[in-house]
């Protein structure tokens, strides 16, 4: 930890490993797409893998891992709250899809 509360960053070799890990996750996503999974299962897997990718990119490429914790707590919980609230739309989607179509 440096004197301003941040952590020293790793070097090129480490970033190459992070880059490789992200490419592997993308390859896994494509692999899973063609495994005949159900729609819901595929969506769940892709979302989980995308969040893992995003966390790696956010932490290491964007250096949040090496910044003060205050930055994380000032930005990420707000975003997660937004996305949590947006989940209220799914009930309406289920209602819309079962609405009878009226003839003209």
């Amino acid at each position, binding site marked *: 930890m440096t004197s*301003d509360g941040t952590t020293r960053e790793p070097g090129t070799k480490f970033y190459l490993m992070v880059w490789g890990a992200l490419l592997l996750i*993308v390859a896994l996503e494509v692999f899973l*797409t063609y495994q005949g999974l159900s729609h819901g299962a595929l969506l769940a897997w892709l979302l989980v893998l995308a969040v893992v990718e995003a966390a790696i990119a956010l932490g290491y490429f964007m250096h949040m891992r090496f910044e003060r914790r*205050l930055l994380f707590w000032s930005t990420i919980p707000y975003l997660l709250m937004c996305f949590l609230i947006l989940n209220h739309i*799914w009930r309406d989607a*289920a209602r819309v899809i079962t609405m009878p179509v009226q003839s003209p």
Partner: protein
Amino acid sequence: MAHPQVTMHGGHAAALEPSPFGMSSKKLVMWLFITADAATFGAILFGYGFLRAAAPDWPRPFEFSPTILNGLVMTFVLLTSSLTMLQAVAASGRDDRPGTARWMGVTILLGALFAFLHLREWFKMFAEGWGLHANPTGGPVDFGASFFSITGLHLLHVISGLVALAVVAILFRRGRLTPNHIETTGLYWHFVDLVWMFVFPLVYLMNAH
């Protein structure tokens, strides 16, 4: 005795206090912009999810070749551009201005390649009859509306990012900007990459044939 900067100009109390985030104001503002933009992309992806969940006959037209393969290449290009941007930031930290400009040049080239591949795909889809309000399979037109809106918004971020990278690279090379500017611009570019990590699986892979 009162500090003249504070009493005469007002609002300069921040000059007397260190930032609680341990970073410059411009970098903090970039983080705040990224947070807001992430909420925007999140909302547009949720909107796409709603349209898809509410449509009983949502098309899944993307074949592995060429669409998913093209998407894979685009993902590789964008991820590599983030890596080269990291090299540019590291070079700027060593005050290696020619090196920084070179790495940013490579980043710009990779970003331009991404944009080219994307636009090529768009024009191929237009030729097949897809559009903002057109679906050649006869299904819901919301597919085109959501696909082109989401990828279009991302492409707009890519193109504006390329412009910003070019300007910052030139000015840094001429000695008019600091390494902090490179890092701040790099943050934006990594964010563009981060958004693609959600767009590719949710918009491309979930619509794979």
